[in-house]
């Protein structure tokens, strides 16, 4: 059980917020507070006023240049030189992309260059006849 002397000693050291007190003493302090609300509240309020002043002052700040210097001193591992392993879904994605591309090509085919169609027809037509290849060759020679 906590007595008034110990309660005051803890308040003088740790301030007016029981959450900042040693964990092992908080329950006993809360019990003392419940039993002696008037005197305990007065002691805590006195310390809480100083807590508020300290909170206004805050801790010592850190300059950005110090943080940069500390970070620069750290050994950072270089990224691995070997390529990343291919994920399992990459094959499926590639097949899908191929299908989409082929489909788009098929749909776009009627609007293709008519001159290219003519050249293609001549080439395949020439291959159908025995002397067609010679004819094309002779025409190119001219």
């Amino acid at each position, binding site marked *: 059980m906590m007595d008034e002397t110990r309660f005051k000693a803890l308040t003088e050291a740790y301030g007016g917020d029981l959450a900042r007190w040693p964990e092992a003493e908080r329950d006993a302090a809360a019990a003392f507070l419940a039993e002696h609300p008037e005197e305990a509240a007065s002691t805590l309020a006195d310390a809480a006023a100083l807590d508020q002043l300290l909170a206004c002052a805050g801790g010592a700040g850190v300059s950005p240049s110090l943080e940069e210097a500390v970070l620069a*001193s750290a050994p950072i591992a270089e990224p691995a030189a070997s390529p990343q392993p291919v994920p399992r879904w990459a094959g499926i994605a590639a097949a899908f992309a191929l299908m989409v591309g082929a489909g788009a090509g098929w749909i776009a085919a009627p609007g293709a260059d008519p001159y290219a169609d003519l050249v293609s027809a001549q080439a395949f037509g020439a291959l159908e006849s025995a002397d067609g290849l010679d004819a094309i060759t002779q025409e190119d020679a001219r």
Partner: protein
Amino acid sequence: MRPVLRVISGSPRPTRDRPLAGDRALADGVARGERGAVAALTRRCLPVVHGIARRLLKDSVEAEDVAQETFVKVWRSIHTYDPERARLEAWTGKIAANACYDRLRKRGEVLLDEAMPERADEAPRADAVLAAKDSAARVRAAVDALPPRQAAALELCALRDHTNIEAAEILGVSVDALESLLARARRTLKTALAEEHGALLDGLSEGHGGQA
């Protein structure tokens, strides 16, 4: 419990209950040289390290030197960190405090026994406190004027949210001695800041009267 007492007693601080697994994962990341882990540890621990050094050495330039020196040691020995024994803030803080004590010894400043007064003159530097224009500046001046270990104890327990056990371990003193350092620091501040303290107390009592 009356509302005013609930306000005073506050609530438990979650930062003290941070899972140890998080500290272990962060330390492992630093040991592997992961940039993100290094940045996270620096952001978390540099304020504590710098705060301790500034309070113990009373010299901002030297405090920055010690902070850098501390982190070089942290990067080298991160593989020895044991989260079961201390949070990262406490572990790095302890390294910083030891570095400060080494410097103080080299300066020729003898560390006095923890049961004895740290310095003959523990009175606040009244001129600095009175010269500060606003309340926050006056409080900062009063805290800066405290003897080194009192200021460091206050920085850890009142401003940085360390437990009494952690703060005692960091500063290398017993828990009883830490309590004594804190009580002496607060008594000195209360005297130095009597005007502000009185005004705040008046405000608090008016608030209590309104709620009663």
